[in-house]
């Protein structure tokens, strides 16, 4: 009997020890002697280990770029950094949506990779969570000249993301439809209304397309606001919503409603996503669309005979100033939980150096984030070069970048826009007042 009790006790003790050892092993993960990755959850208020030359330091770099670039291209670029500094870079490449989920999970658990690829629409929320590091302080500490950066994404005056490359959204034109209708390229809103009307009458095809699916409401940013920004307008004032009583926005809304009322917009807009719009354009059913330059290769390979061109987005009648062109970007930031913030900053500086940045821009079919970068785009890609000219003639803009819950702001605007287009909301001014009321809650 005693022996049986002893057996129970021994078993219990062994189990308890095993459990404790397991828990201790998990808990001590941070104090592991290995220097691999600073993503184990250790908080470093000092911002650096002070060891910048250590060849045994490995930084984790989580992004979606590696998936979208040619095979091995990103690895080759980061290997250049290792050759310069001895600091190893471990790439964690996953598709965009997965990267977002993993970074969000890492932000919640404090286990983010040291360096992360960021989208402008995530920055505010991660910065407010304290998940990403203040780059202003790190740049100052390193004496980095930030005037060479084309843009910086700030929250409360501090930089949290640096756009590495920019993807512009010019206006695509189906020249076959334009020629068939016998119209010329529009340069202002009145011309655009008339041209799309003629195209619809003479070819039966849609003049313009806008994806307004609430599943992915980026159509508000890329296809609606692009009209406003091209005519020098803004939806913000001092970083806060400026929708109610905004005459430029009222004019934009009335212009877009006119297009819908004329029946020139591709049908099914309320359930349409960006990919659906590209498909409509590729199949020759739409004359004009505003879309990412990144889709040019896909469109040309899917429809090699399609006669397409790029034009500046038509502006409000009488507007003569510079046009803003909507951009999306591959941004970069540093995790607050990284033990090697100073080393991570060195890596960002390397990625933003003119030579490396230009190389990355060429590989990604994008525009560089360093103003001194000189990308060597292939000379035979005339369409791309034309888009680059249009981009350089204006200025890059995306007012949704860095806003709180920016995707939700787009969705709310989208819903109110649909109510206005359907006539549930009587006037553009009323629609903007309602949207302003909804938006300000996110800025509190």
């Amino acid at each position: 009997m005693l022996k049986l009790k002893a057996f129970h006790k021994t078993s219990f003790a062994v189990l308890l020890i095993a459990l404790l050892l397991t828990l201790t092993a998990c808990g001590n993960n941070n104090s592991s002697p290995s220097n691999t990755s600073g993503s184990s959850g250790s908080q470093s208020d000092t911002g650096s280990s002070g060891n910048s030359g250590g060849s045994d330091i490995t930084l984790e770099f989580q992004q979606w770029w590696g998936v979208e670039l040619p095979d091995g291209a990103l690895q080759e670029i980061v290997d250049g950094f290792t050759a310069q500094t001895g600091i190893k870079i471990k790439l964690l490449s996953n598709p965009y949506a997965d990267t977002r989920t993993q970074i969000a999970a890492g932000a919640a658990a404090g286990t983010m990779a040291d360096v992360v690829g960021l989208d402008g629409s995530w920055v505010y929320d991660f910065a407010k969570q304290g998940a990403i590091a203040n780059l202003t302080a790190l740049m100052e500490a390193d004496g980095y000249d930030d005037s060479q950066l084309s843009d910086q994404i700030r929250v409360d005056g501090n930089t949290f993301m640096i756009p590495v490359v920019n993807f512009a959204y010019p206006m695509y034109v189906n020249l076959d439809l334009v020629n068939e209708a016998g119209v010329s390229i529009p340069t202002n809103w009145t011309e655009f209304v008339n041209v799309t009307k003629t195209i619809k009458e003479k070819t039966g095809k849609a003049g313009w397309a806008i994806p307004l699916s609430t599943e992915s409401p980026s159509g508000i940013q890329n296809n609606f606001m692009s009209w406003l920004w091209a005519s020098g307008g803004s939806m913000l004032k001092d970083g806060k919503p400026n929708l109610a009583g905004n005459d430029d926005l009222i004019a934009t809304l009335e212009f877009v409603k006119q297009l819908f009322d004329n029946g020139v917009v591709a049908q099914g807009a309320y359930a349409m996503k960006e990919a659906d719009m590209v498909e409509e354009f590729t199949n020759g059913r739409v004359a004009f669309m505003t879309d990412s330059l990144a889709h040019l290769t896909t469109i040309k390979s899917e429809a090699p005979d399609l006669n397409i061109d790029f034009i500046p987005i038509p502006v409000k009648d009488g507007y003569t100033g510079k046009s803003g062109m909507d951009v999306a970007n591959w941004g970069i930031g540093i995790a607050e939980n990284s033990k090697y913030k100073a080393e991570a900053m060195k890596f960002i500086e390397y990625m933003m150096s003119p030579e490396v940045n230009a190389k990355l821009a060429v590989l990604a079919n994008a525009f560089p984030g360093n103003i001194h970068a000189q990308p060597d785009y292939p000379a035979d890609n005339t369409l791309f070069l034309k888009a680059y000219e249009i981009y350089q003639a204006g200025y890059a803009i995306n007012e949704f970048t860095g806003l709180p819950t920016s995707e939700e702001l787009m969705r709310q605007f989208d819903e109110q826009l649909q109510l206005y287009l359907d006539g549930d909301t009587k006037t553009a001014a009323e629609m903007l007042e309602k949207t302003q009321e909804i938006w300000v809650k996110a800025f509190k």
Partner: protein
Amino acid sequence: MKANSINIYKQDAPSLRKKTEPYLYLLPTLLLMCVLLIIPIIMVIRYSFYDNVIINKNPVFVGLENFKLIFENSTFVVAVKNTIVFVGGSIVFHMIFGLAFAVVLNTKYLHRRTKAVSRVLLALPWMFTASVIAILWKMMMNPNGIINYLLSVTNLSSSHIEWLASRDFALFSITFINIWAGYPFYMVSLLAGLQGIPNDLYEAAAIDGANISQRFFRITLPQLKPIIISLVMLDFVWTIQQFALIWMTTGGGPINATEMMSTFIYKLGFSKYEYAQASASAVILLVVCTIVAIFYVRHQRGQE
């Protein structure tokens, strides 16, 4: 004394091993269930009583405040109404189509080969994943798609109907897609049930002069009742949680025309970052599903 102890140990050791052995076999499953099911459920329930968790590093206990906010949210009310229409419509038509096709496939008037081919064709929608179904129907329901084309060539409609983009049609359209995707489950289950009904019952009824309709309502339906109840309860739980199909076709729009509980919770969590309110909504859904699950288990036990 020493010898006695050894004997006791020798006798008890195998019985102890016998007693613990089943639990050891169960241990991996129990651990997995604990990590993947019990702990997440407890965490979500806990989150629902705190102020904005995850975003807020030091969340505060707020009692039922999140539930109050959810019930006051007008979109939640719309989502509940739409979910009732979607789930109710899906279950009723799953049943009608599933039973009708099962009866047709069980008839003795069809050739065996015809039956085999029909079974494969009719069960086909069940083989597709939600993403394939969504893409397929999005293309067919496109204003320039095949459905509008067929309607126009048969002179049933002259205009291009926006099946998924119109507030008048969107809820109907996604309910229809879900019915199409789900009826084979009913069909296969009911067909198995029909094949288990003894032929003697129909022969006796025929001798008594019962017609087809009397045989269907007095024999077939009562015999299928236990399967039908199980199917309805399972379908309720599955359909109320349907997310992928709705998200990939309409995203809950246009405006809130197809907003369901599932899309409402997703948007709260991953678009507004209101994890506590999303947890509270998920708890409400969990309670509804648990009530149905309790009825299901009781019904199953009753049958045993």
